[in-house]
Protein backbone atom coordinates (compact mmCIF):
# COMPACT_ATOMS: atom_id res chain seq x y z
CA UNK A 1 0.00 0.00 0.00
CA UNK A 2 1.33 3.45 -0.94
CA UNK A 3 1.88 6.25 1.54
CA UNK A 4 -1.42 7.57 2.89
CA UNK A 5 0.43 10.59 4.28
CA UNK A 6 1.70 11.50 0.80
CA UNK A 7 -1.74 10.90 -0.79
CA UNK A 8 -3.46 13.22 1.67
CA UNK A 9 -0.65 15.78 1.45
CA UNK A 10 -1.11 15.94 -2.34
CA UNK A 11 -4.89 16.30 -1.96
CA UNK A 12 -4.42 19.22 0.45
CA UNK A 13 -1.85 20.95 -1.76
CA UNK A 14 -3.95 20.45 -4.91
CA UNK A 15 -7.02 21.82 -3.12
CA UNK A 16 -9.02 18.61 -3.60
CA UNK A 17 -10.00 18.72 0.08
CA UNK A 18 -9.60 21.33 2.80
CA UNK A 19 -7.82 20.37 5.98
CA UNK A 20 -10.88 21.38 8.02
CA UNK A 21 -13.09 19.09 5.92
CA UNK A 22 -10.58 16.24 6.22
CA UNK A 23 -10.29 16.59 10.00
CA UNK A 24 -14.07 16.91 10.47
CA UNK A 25 -14.66 13.77 8.36
CA UNK A 26 -12.22 11.79 10.49
CA UNK A 27 -13.69 13.14 13.73
CA UNK A 28 -17.19 12.13 12.56
CA UNK A 29 -15.98 8.63 11.71
CA UNK A 30 -14.34 8.29 15.13
CA UNK A 31 -17.39 9.66 16.97
CA UNK A 32 -19.82 7.20 15.44
CA UNK A 33 -17.52 4.16 15.32
CA UNK A 34 -18.73 1.06 17.14
CA UNK A 35 -15.30 -0.49 17.77
CA UNK A 36 -14.79 1.34 21.10
CA UNK A 37 -11.60 2.99 19.90
CA UNK A 38 -12.18 6.44 21.38
CA UNK A 39 -11.51 7.52 24.96
CA UNK A 40 -11.56 11.25 24.18
CA UNK A 41 -11.89 13.26 20.98
CA UNK A 42 -9.69 16.35 20.68
CA UNK A 43 -12.19 18.05 18.34
CA UNK A 44 -11.76 21.75 19.17
CA UNK A 45 -7.99 21.70 19.10
CA UNK A 46 -7.95 19.62 15.90
CA UNK A 47 -10.31 21.97 14.06
CA UNK A 48 -8.29 25.02 15.20
CA UNK A 49 -5.08 23.47 13.87
CA UNK A 50 -6.80 22.46 10.61
CA UNK A 51 -7.99 26.03 10.03
CA UNK A 52 -4.40 27.26 10.36
CA UNK A 53 -3.25 24.78 7.71
CA UNK A 54 -6.05 25.90 5.38
CA UNK A 55 -5.02 29.51 5.92
CA UNK A 56 -1.42 28.71 4.94
CA UNK A 57 -2.52 26.91 1.79
CA UNK A 58 -4.88 29.77 0.92
CA UNK A 59 -2.01 32.24 1.27
CA UNK A 60 0.10 30.19 -1.12
CA UNK A 61 2.55 29.07 1.56
CA UNK A 62 4.25 25.70 1.28
CA UNK A 63 3.19 23.05 3.78
CA UNK A 64 5.33 20.23 5.13
CA UNK A 65 4.57 16.57 4.43
CA UNK A 66 2.97 16.02 7.86
CA UNK A 67 1.20 19.36 8.03
CA UNK A 68 -2.54 18.80 8.40
CA UNK A 69 -2.23 15.00 8.65
CA UNK A 70 -4.66 13.67 11.31
CA UNK A 71 -3.32 11.07 13.72
CA UNK A 72 -4.30 9.14 16.84
CA UNK A 73 -2.62 9.00 20.23
CA UNK A 74 -2.80 6.06 22.61
CA UNK A 75 -4.33 7.30 25.86
CA UNK A 76 -1.16 6.86 27.88
CA UNK A 77 0.55 9.88 26.29
CA UNK A 78 0.29 13.40 27.62
CA UNK A 79 -0.97 16.14 25.30
CA UNK A 80 -1.07 19.45 27.19
CA UNK A 81 -4.58 20.48 28.23
CA UNK A 82 -6.14 17.19 27.07
CA UNK A 83 -7.29 14.19 29.12
CA UNK A 84 -4.87 11.31 29.76
CA UNK A 85 -6.66 8.46 31.51
CA UNK A 86 -4.54 5.36 30.79
CA UNK A 87 -8.01 3.80 30.32
CA UNK A 88 -8.38 3.79 34.11
CA UNK A 89 -10.90 5.13 36.61
CA UNK A 90 -7.91 6.50 38.52
CA UNK A 91 -7.09 9.12 35.89
CA UNK A 92 -10.42 9.47 34.09
CA UNK A 93 -10.58 13.18 35.03
CA UNK A 94 -6.83 13.89 34.77
CA UNK A 95 -5.60 16.67 32.46
CA UNK A 96 -2.12 16.50 30.89
CA UNK A 97 0.05 19.35 32.20
CA UNK A 98 2.60 19.05 29.35
CA UNK A 99 3.06 17.26 26.03
CA UNK A 100 5.05 14.08 25.40
CA UNK A 101 8.18 14.66 23.33
CA UNK A 102 7.13 12.32 20.49
CA UNK A 103 3.74 14.03 20.20
CA UNK A 104 5.33 17.49 20.42
CA UNK A 105 7.63 16.62 17.50
CA UNK A 106 4.60 15.65 15.42
CA UNK A 107 2.80 18.84 16.43
CA UNK A 108 5.91 20.83 15.46
CA UNK A 109 5.78 19.12 12.05
CA UNK A 110 2.14 20.22 11.71
CA UNK A 111 0.39 16.87 12.24
CA UNK A 112 -2.98 17.07 14.00
CA UNK A 113 -3.87 14.83 16.98
CA UNK A 114 -7.55 13.82 16.77
CA UNK A 115 -8.16 11.30 19.49
CA UNK A 116 -6.92 9.75 22.70
CA UNK A 117 -7.28 6.07 21.89
CA UNK A 118 -8.59 3.23 24.04
CA UNK A 119 -5.95 0.80 25.31
CA UNK A 120 -5.36 -1.68 28.11
CA UNK A 121 -5.21 0.17 31.41
CA UNK A 122 -1.62 1.41 31.99
CA UNK A 123 -0.59 -0.90 29.13
CA UNK A 124 -1.50 -3.98 31.17
CA UNK A 125 -2.95 -6.40 28.66
CA UNK A 126 -2.76 -8.13 25.32
CA UNK A 127 -6.39 -7.76 24.23
CA UNK A 128 -7.55 -4.18 24.98
CA UNK A 129 -10.20 -5.63 27.31
CA UNK A 130 -8.55 -4.35 30.50
CA UNK A 131 -10.09 -0.89 30.09
CA UNK A 132 -12.84 1.10 31.76
CA UNK A 133 -14.01 2.34 28.33
CA UNK A 134 -15.19 -1.09 27.12
CA UNK A 135 -13.17 -3.55 25.01
CA UNK A 136 -11.87 -2.31 21.67
CA UNK A 137 -13.12 -4.54 18.85
CA UNK A 138 -11.03 -6.00 16.06
CA UNK A 139 -11.15 -4.05 12.78
CA UNK A 140 -11.74 -7.18 10.70
CA UNK A 141 -14.17 -9.06 12.97
CA UNK A 142 -15.83 -7.18 15.79
CA UNK A 143 -16.46 -10.35 17.80
CA UNK A 144 -12.69 -10.66 18.28
CA UNK A 145 -10.32 -8.60 20.40
CA UNK A 146 -8.37 -5.71 18.93
CA UNK A 147 -5.17 -6.89 20.63
CA UNK A 148 -3.23 -4.91 23.12
CA UNK A 149 -2.31 -2.88 24.67
CA UNK A 150 -2.38 -0.37 21.76
CA UNK A 151 -5.44 -2.14 20.32
CA UNK A 152 -7.63 0.83 19.42
CA UNK A 153 -4.67 2.57 17.78
CA UNK A 154 -4.27 -0.34 15.36
CA UNK A 155 -8.04 -0.50 14.72
CA UNK A 156 -8.22 3.23 13.95
CA UNK A 157 -5.45 2.87 11.35
CA UNK A 158 -6.97 -0.29 9.86
CA UNK A 159 -10.38 1.40 9.56
CA UNK A 160 -8.72 4.59 8.19
CA UNK A 161 -10.14 6.70 11.03
CA UNK A 162 -6.61 7.99 11.60
CA UNK A 163 -3.81 8.21 9.04
CA UNK A 164 -1.38 6.84 11.60
CA UNK A 165 -1.36 6.36 15.34
CA UNK A 166 1.31 6.59 18.03
CA UNK A 167 1.43 3.60 20.34
CA UNK A 168 3.53 2.36 23.20
CA UNK A 169 5.19 -1.07 23.17
CA UNK A 170 6.55 -2.65 26.35
CA UNK A 171 6.27 -6.34 25.45
CA UNK A 172 4.50 -6.27 22.08
CA UNK A 173 1.78 -3.67 22.53
CA UNK A 174 2.31 -2.12 19.09
CA UNK A 175 3.33 -5.24 17.15
CA UNK A 176 0.62 -7.65 18.32
CA UNK A 177 -2.40 -5.39 17.65
CA UNK A 178 -0.82 -4.39 14.33
CA UNK A 179 -0.77 -8.10 13.47
CA UNK A 180 -4.32 -8.71 14.69
CA UNK A 181 -5.62 -5.83 12.53
CA UNK A 182 -3.34 -6.32 9.49
CA UNK A 183 -1.41 -3.05 9.55
CA UNK A 184 2.25 -2.15 10.11
CA UNK A 185 3.58 -1.48 13.60
CA UNK A 186 7.14 -0.67 14.62
CA UNK A 187 8.80 -0.95 18.00
CA UNK A 188 12.02 1.03 17.54
CA UNK A 189 15.29 0.31 19.33
CA UNK A 190 14.99 1.18 23.02
CA UNK A 191 16.09 4.81 23.36
CA UNK A 192 15.56 5.88 19.74
CA UNK A 193 12.32 7.68 20.64
CA UNK A 194 11.90 9.62 23.89
CA UNK A 195 9.66 8.16 26.59
CA UNK A 196 9.08 11.59 28.12
CA UNK A 197 5.35 12.08 28.55
CA UNK A 198 4.27 8.45 28.19
CA UNK A 199 2.97 6.94 31.42
CA UNK A 200 5.60 4.45 32.56
CA UNK A 201 4.71 0.75 32.60
CA UNK A 202 8.08 -1.04 32.61
CA UNK A 203 10.68 1.66 32.07
CA UNK A 204 13.44 -0.67 30.89
CA UNK A 205 11.44 -1.91 27.89
CA UNK A 206 8.89 0.89 27.25
CA UNK A 207 9.17 2.12 23.64
CA UNK A 208 7.21 4.64 21.56
CA UNK A 209 6.45 3.83 17.93
CA UNK A 210 4.15 4.28 14.93
CA UNK A 211 1.27 2.19 13.60
CA UNK A 212 0.43 2.89 9.93
CA UNK A 213 -1.01 1.36 6.79
CA UNK A 214 2.24 1.55 4.78
CA UNK A 215 5.96 1.16 5.30
CA UNK A 216 6.50 4.61 3.82
CA UNK A 217 4.36 6.15 6.54
CA UNK A 218 6.16 4.18 9.26
CA UNK A 219 9.42 5.64 7.95
CA UNK A 220 8.11 9.22 7.78
CA UNK A 221 6.74 9.13 11.32
CA UNK A 222 9.75 7.30 12.77
CA UNK A 223 12.13 9.90 11.35
CA UNK A 224 9.99 12.67 12.82
CA UNK A 225 9.75 11.35 16.38
CA UNK A 226 13.30 9.96 16.81
CA UNK A 227 16.15 11.71 18.54
CA UNK A 228 17.97 12.55 21.72
CA UNK A 229 15.85 14.27 24.33
CA UNK A 230 16.91 16.35 27.31
CA UNK A 231 14.02 14.86 29.29
CA UNK A 232 14.93 11.20 28.68
CA UNK A 233 18.54 10.30 29.40
CA UNK A 234 18.17 6.87 27.75
CA UNK A 235 17.65 8.45 24.30
CA UNK A 236 20.39 8.61 21.68
CA UNK A 237 20.97 10.68 18.54
CA UNK A 238 19.99 8.72 15.42
CA UNK A 239 20.34 9.28 11.70
CA UNK A 240 17.14 9.28 9.62
CA UNK A 241 16.11 6.02 8.00
CA UNK A 242 16.34 6.08 4.20
CA UNK A 243 14.98 3.09 2.28
CA UNK A 244 15.16 4.59 -1.21
CA UNK A 245 18.13 2.38 -2.12
CA UNK A 246 17.28 -1.13 -3.34
CA UNK A 247 18.14 -3.95 -0.95
CA UNK A 248 21.43 -5.71 -1.69
CA UNK A 249 20.28 -9.31 -1.42
CA UNK A 250 23.85 -10.61 -1.40
CA UNK A 251 24.45 -8.84 1.91
CA UNK A 252 21.38 -10.27 3.66
CA UNK A 253 21.13 -13.45 5.71
CA UNK A 254 17.78 -14.28 7.29
CA UNK A 255 17.53 -16.16 10.57
CA UNK A 256 14.62 -17.81 12.35
CA UNK A 257 14.34 -19.63 15.67
CA UNK A 258 13.47 -23.31 15.41
CA UNK A 259 12.02 -23.24 18.96
CA UNK A 260 9.55 -20.59 17.85
CA UNK A 261 8.44 -22.56 14.78
CA UNK A 262 8.24 -25.88 16.65
CA UNK A 263 6.34 -24.33 19.59
CA UNK A 264 3.31 -26.57 20.27
CA UNK A 265 1.10 -23.51 20.74
CA UNK A 266 1.72 -22.28 17.19
CA UNK A 267 -1.33 -22.78 14.97
CA UNK A 268 -0.59 -25.37 12.24
CA UNK A 269 -1.66 -23.03 9.43
CA UNK A 270 0.46 -20.20 10.86
CA UNK A 271 3.45 -22.54 10.90
CA UNK A 272 2.85 -23.63 7.32
CA UNK A 273 2.50 -20.07 6.07
CA UNK A 274 5.60 -18.96 7.95
CA UNK A 275 7.64 -21.80 6.42
CA UNK A 276 6.24 -20.95 2.96
CA UNK A 277 7.46 -17.37 3.45
CA UNK A 278 10.94 -18.67 4.28
CA UNK A 279 10.85 -20.77 1.07
CA UNK A 280 9.95 -17.69 -0.97
CA UNK A 281 12.92 -15.86 0.51
CA UNK A 282 15.24 -18.77 -0.25
CA UNK A 283 13.93 -18.80 -3.83
CA UNK A 284 15.24 -15.23 -4.16
CA UNK A 285 18.76 -16.50 -3.53
CA UNK A 286 18.88 -15.26 0.07
CA UNK A 287 20.49 -17.49 2.67
CA UNK A 288 18.08 -18.58 5.41
CA UNK A 289 19.61 -19.89 8.62
CA UNK A 290 17.94 -21.84 11.44
CA UNK A 291 18.92 -20.55 14.87
CA UNK A 292 18.39 -21.91 18.37
CA UNK A 293 16.88 -19.94 21.21
CA UNK A 294 17.85 -21.78 24.35
CA UNK A 295 15.86 -19.49 26.69
CA UNK A 296 12.56 -19.87 24.80
CA UNK A 297 10.82 -21.69 27.65
CA UNK A 298 11.63 -18.96 30.18
CA UNK A 299 10.96 -15.91 27.98
CA UNK A 300 7.42 -15.18 29.19
CA UNK A 301 8.31 -15.61 32.86
CA UNK A 302 11.44 -13.49 32.59
CA UNK A 303 9.57 -10.67 30.93
CA UNK A 304 6.62 -10.68 33.32
CA UNK A 305 8.75 -10.93 36.48
CA UNK A 306 10.69 -7.82 35.43
CA UNK A 307 7.72 -5.92 33.97
CA UNK A 308 5.60 -6.53 37.08
CA UNK A 309 8.44 -5.39 39.36
CA UNK A 310 8.84 -2.20 37.34
CA UNK A 311 5.14 -1.43 37.12
CA UNK A 312 4.71 -1.96 40.87
CA UNK A 313 7.37 0.69 41.39
CA UNK A 314 6.08 3.06 38.70
CA UNK A 315 2.46 2.93 39.85
CA UNK A 316 3.34 3.39 43.53
CA UNK A 317 3.02 7.13 42.83
CA UNK A 318 -0.70 6.72 42.18
CA UNK A 319 -2.18 7.07 45.66
CA UNK A 320 -4.65 9.93 45.27
CA UNK A 321 -2.37 12.45 46.99
CA UNK A 322 -1.34 14.78 44.19
CA UNK A 323 -3.65 13.91 41.30
CA UNK A 324 -6.22 11.37 40.17
CA UNK A 325 -9.09 9.99 42.20
CA UNK A 326 -8.89 10.08 46.00
CA UNK A 327 -11.07 8.29 48.55
CA UNK A 328 -10.93 9.96 51.96
CA UNK A 329 -10.63 7.56 54.90
CA UNK A 330 -9.95 7.43 58.64
CA UNK A 331 -6.18 7.26 58.23
CA UNK A 332 -3.69 8.21 55.52
CA UNK A 333 -2.77 4.56 54.89
CA UNK A 334 -6.44 3.64 54.56
CA UNK A 335 -6.94 6.50 52.13
CA UNK A 336 -4.08 5.18 49.98
CA UNK A 337 -5.22 1.57 50.01
CA UNK A 338 -8.94 2.23 49.50
CA UNK A 339 -8.15 4.66 46.67
CA UNK A 340 -5.89 2.13 44.96
CA UNK A 341 -8.23 -0.83 45.57
CA UNK A 342 -11.21 0.98 44.07
CA UNK A 343 -9.51 2.68 41.12
CA UNK A 344 -7.14 0.12 39.63
CA UNK A 345 -8.57 -2.67 37.45
CA UNK A 346 -8.20 -6.31 38.52
CA UNK A 347 -5.44 -6.98 35.96
CA UNK A 348 -3.48 -3.90 37.03
CA UNK A 349 -3.79 -4.95 40.68
CA UNK A 350 -2.62 -8.47 39.78
CA UNK A 351 0.53 -7.02 38.19
CA UNK A 352 1.24 -4.58 41.03
CA UNK A 353 0.87 -7.33 43.61
CA UNK A 354 3.03 -9.69 41.52
CA UNK A 355 5.67 -6.99 41.23
CA UNK A 356 5.76 -6.36 44.96
CA UNK A 357 5.98 -10.10 45.51
CA UNK A 358 9.01 -10.25 43.19
CA UNK A 359 10.71 -7.37 44.97
CA UNK A 360 9.93 -8.40 48.52
CA UNK A 361 12.50 -9.73 50.94
CA UNK A 362 13.08 -13.44 50.45
CA UNK A 363 11.94 -13.41 46.83
CA UNK A 364 14.08 -10.80 45.16
CA UNK A 365 17.16 -13.05 44.85
CA UNK A 366 15.41 -16.11 43.49
CA UNK A 367 13.01 -14.25 41.19
CA UNK A 368 13.94 -10.64 40.41
CA UNK A 369 17.72 -10.97 40.36
CA UNK A 370 17.55 -14.28 38.56
CA UNK A 371 15.16 -12.83 35.95
CA UNK A 372 17.56 -9.91 35.50
CA UNK A 373 20.42 -12.37 34.93
CA UNK A 374 18.28 -14.35 32.47
CA UNK A 375 17.59 -11.12 30.61
CA UNK A 376 21.29 -10.39 30.30
CA UNK A 377 21.74 -13.92 28.96
CA UNK A 378 18.98 -13.32 26.40
CA UNK A 379 20.57 -10.03 25.30
CA UNK A 380 23.93 -11.71 24.85
CA UNK A 381 22.25 -14.46 22.87
CA UNK A 382 20.74 -11.89 20.47
CA UNK A 383 24.08 -10.12 20.09
CA UNK A 384 25.71 -13.41 19.05
CA UNK A 385 22.89 -14.26 16.63
CA UNK A 386 23.15 -10.89 14.88
CA UNK A 387 26.80 -11.63 14.16
CA UNK A 388 25.49 -14.44 11.92
CA UNK A 389 22.33 -12.97 10.38
CA UNK A 390 21.03 -9.56 9.26
CA UNK A 391 17.39 -10.02 10.23
CA UNK A 392 15.41 -12.55 12.26
CA UNK A 393 11.89 -13.48 11.18
CA UNK A 394 9.28 -14.82 13.56
CA UNK A 395 5.52 -15.09 13.86
CA UNK A 396 3.84 -12.25 15.77
CA UNK A 397 1.30 -14.39 17.63
CA UNK A 398 0.76 -18.14 17.93
CA UNK A 399 -2.92 -17.98 16.95
CA UNK A 400 -5.72 -15.79 15.61
CA UNK A 401 -7.08 -13.09 17.96
CA UNK A 402 -9.32 -14.57 20.69
CA UNK A 403 -13.01 -13.79 21.04
CA UNK A 404 -13.87 -10.85 23.27
CA UNK A 405 -14.54 -12.04 26.83
CA UNK A 406 -12.27 -15.09 26.89
CA UNK A 407 -8.85 -13.79 27.88
CA UNK A 408 -9.26 -11.96 31.20
CA UNK A 409 -10.67 -15.16 32.71
CA UNK A 410 -7.37 -16.91 32.00
CA UNK A 411 -4.52 -14.42 32.56
CA UNK A 412 -1.80 -17.07 32.27
CA UNK A 413 -2.97 -17.96 28.75
CA UNK A 414 -2.94 -14.24 27.90
CA UNK A 415 0.63 -13.88 29.19
CA UNK A 416 1.76 -16.95 27.24
CA UNK A 417 0.30 -15.54 24.00
CA UNK A 418 3.04 -12.87 24.13
CA UNK A 419 5.74 -15.50 23.54
CA UNK A 420 6.92 -14.12 20.17
CA UNK A 421 7.08 -10.42 21.00
CA UNK A 422 8.52 -10.12 24.50
CA UNK A 423 11.99 -11.54 23.77
CA UNK A 424 12.80 -8.71 21.38
CA UNK A 425 11.57 -6.22 24.01
CA UNK A 426 13.95 -7.69 26.58
CA UNK A 427 16.69 -7.42 23.94
CA UNK A 428 15.88 -3.70 23.32
CA UNK A 429 15.79 -4.57 19.60
CA UNK A 430 13.92 -2.84 16.77
CA UNK A 431 11.08 -5.02 15.47
CA UNK A 432 8.42 -4.47 12.83
CA UNK A 433 5.13 -6.27 12.36
CA UNK A 434 4.38 -6.57 8.66
CA UNK A 435 0.92 -7.89 7.68
CA UNK A 436 2.22 -10.71 5.45
CA UNK A 437 3.13 -14.36 5.97
CA UNK A 438 0.82 -15.66 8.68
CA UNK A 439 -2.75 -14.49 9.41
CA UNK A 440 -1.37 -12.10 12.04
CA UNK A 441 1.72 -11.09 10.09
CA UNK A 442 5.41 -11.59 10.54
CA UNK A 443 7.94 -9.88 12.80
CA UNK A 444 11.17 -8.60 11.27
CA UNK A 445 13.87 -7.92 13.85
CA UNK A 446 17.41 -6.61 13.44
CA UNK A 447 20.30 -5.63 15.69
CA UNK A 448 20.01 -2.44 17.74
CA UNK A 449 19.72 0.79 15.70
CA UNK A 450 19.17 -1.15 12.43
CA UNK A 451 15.67 0.14 11.63
CA UNK A 452 16.82 0.91 8.08
CA UNK A 453 17.65 -2.76 7.50
CA UNK A 454 14.25 -3.81 8.82
CA UNK A 455 12.24 -1.39 6.69
CA UNK A 456 14.31 -2.13 3.55
CA UNK A 457 13.82 -5.84 4.05
CA UNK A 458 10.08 -5.36 4.72
CA UNK A 459 9.80 -3.52 1.39
CA UNK A 460 11.55 -6.39 -0.32
CA UNK A 461 9.18 -8.90 1.31
CA UNK A 462 6.20 -6.91 0.05
CA UNK A 463 7.59 -7.06 -3.47
CA UNK A 464 7.97 -10.84 -3.49
CA UNK A 465 4.46 -11.55 -2.15
Amino acid at each position, binding site marked *: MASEILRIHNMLVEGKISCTQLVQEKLDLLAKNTHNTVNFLLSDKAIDLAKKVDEKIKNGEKIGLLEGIPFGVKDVFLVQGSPASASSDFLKKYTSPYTATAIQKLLDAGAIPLVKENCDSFGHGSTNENTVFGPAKNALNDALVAGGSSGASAVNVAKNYTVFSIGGDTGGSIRQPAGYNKVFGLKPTYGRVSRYGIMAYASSTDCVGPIASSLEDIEIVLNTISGKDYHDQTTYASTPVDTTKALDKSQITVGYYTEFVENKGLDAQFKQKFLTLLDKIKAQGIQVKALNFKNADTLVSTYYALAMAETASNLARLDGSMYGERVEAESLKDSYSITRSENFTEETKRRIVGGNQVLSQGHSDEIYLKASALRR*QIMEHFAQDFEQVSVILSPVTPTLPPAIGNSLKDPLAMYLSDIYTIGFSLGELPTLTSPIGTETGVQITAAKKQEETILSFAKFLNEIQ
Partner: protein
Amino acid sequence: MTLDVLSSIKGATSSKAVEELFQTIKGAHLDTSSAEISNNHVVTLDDLREDKVIESSELERSIIKGNFPKEKNGYLVVAKVIEN
Protein backbone atom coordinates in the same frame (compact mmCIF):
# COMPACT_ATOMS: atom_id res chain seq x y z
CA MET B 1 5.43 -7.11 55.31
CA THR B 2 2.33 -8.59 53.72
CA LEU B 3 1.46 -8.08 50.05
CA ASP B 4 -1.57 -5.92 50.80
CA VAL B 5 0.59 -3.54 52.84
CA LEU B 6 3.42 -3.54 50.27
CA SER B 7 0.96 -2.86 47.44
CA SER B 8 -1.42 -0.56 49.35
CA ILE B 9 -4.26 -2.67 48.00
CA LYS B 10 -6.90 -4.08 50.32
CA GLY B 11 -6.84 -7.87 50.63
CA ALA B 12 -4.07 -8.29 48.05
CA THR B 13 -2.80 -11.86 47.70
CA SER B 14 -0.64 -13.56 45.10
CA SER B 15 -2.44 -15.03 42.09
CA LYS B 16 -2.10 -18.57 40.71
CA ALA B 17 -1.23 -17.30 37.22
CA VAL B 18 1.61 -15.13 38.51
CA GLU B 19 2.88 -17.87 40.86
CA GLU B 20 3.21 -20.20 37.87
CA LEU B 21 5.39 -17.63 36.07
CA PHE B 22 7.61 -17.29 39.11
CA GLN B 23 8.02 -21.04 39.49
CA THR B 24 9.46 -21.13 35.96
CA ILE B 25 12.06 -18.51 36.92
CA LYS B 26 13.02 -20.42 40.05
CA GLY B 27 13.60 -23.58 38.01
CA ALA B 28 15.34 -21.90 35.06
CA HIS B 29 18.88 -22.81 34.14
CA LEU B 30 21.23 -19.86 34.32
CA ASP B 31 24.38 -20.05 32.26
CA THR B 32 26.90 -18.63 34.70
CA SER B 33 29.68 -18.73 32.11
CA SER B 34 28.07 -15.98 30.02
CA ALA B 35 29.76 -12.61 30.07
CA GLU B 36 28.09 -9.60 31.65
CA ILE B 37 26.43 -7.27 29.16
CA SER B 38 27.48 -3.70 29.64
CA ASN B 39 24.64 -1.33 30.44
CA ASN B 40 24.23 0.87 27.37
CA HIS B 41 22.00 3.29 29.18
CA VAL B 42 24.47 4.51 31.73
CA VAL B 43 24.98 8.22 31.13
CA THR B 44 28.63 9.21 30.88
CA LEU B 45 29.99 12.16 32.86
CA ASP B 46 30.49 14.29 29.75
CA ASP B 47 26.88 13.69 28.65
CA LEU B 48 25.11 14.80 31.80
CA ARG B 49 22.34 17.35 31.59
CA GLU B 50 23.20 20.89 32.51
CA ASP B 51 22.59 21.45 36.21
CA LYS B 52 20.05 24.22 36.03
CA VAL B 53 16.46 24.79 37.01
CA ILE B 54 13.99 24.91 34.13
CA GLU B 55 10.89 26.87 35.04
CA SER B 56 7.61 25.25 34.08
CA SER B 57 5.12 27.44 32.25
CA GLU B 58 2.24 29.18 33.98
CA LEU B 59 -0.16 26.98 31.97
CA GLU B 60 1.60 23.82 33.19
CA ARG B 61 1.45 24.99 36.80
CA SER B 62 -2.22 25.86 36.56
CA ILE B 63 -3.08 22.45 35.07
CA ILE B 64 -1.12 20.72 37.84
CA LYS B 65 -3.13 22.68 40.42
CA GLY B 66 -6.32 21.83 38.53
CA ASN B 67 -5.45 18.15 38.95
CA PHE B 68 -5.26 18.40 42.76
CA PRO B 69 -7.81 15.97 44.24
CA LYS B 70 -8.59 18.62 46.89
CA GLU B 71 -7.48 22.26 46.84
CA LYS B 72 -7.78 25.25 49.17
CA ASN B 73 -6.56 28.76 48.31
CA GLY B 74 -4.28 27.37 45.59
CA TYR B 75 -2.69 24.79 47.90
CA LEU B 76 -2.99 21.02 47.81
CA VAL B 77 -4.98 19.62 50.70
CA VAL B 78 -3.45 16.31 51.76
CA ALA B 79 -5.65 13.42 52.77
CA LYS B 80 -4.47 13.15 56.38
CA VAL B 81 -1.45 13.94 58.49
CA ILE B 82 0.90 10.96 58.74
CA GLU B 83 0.19 9.36 62.11
CA ASN B 84 2.97 6.77 62.24
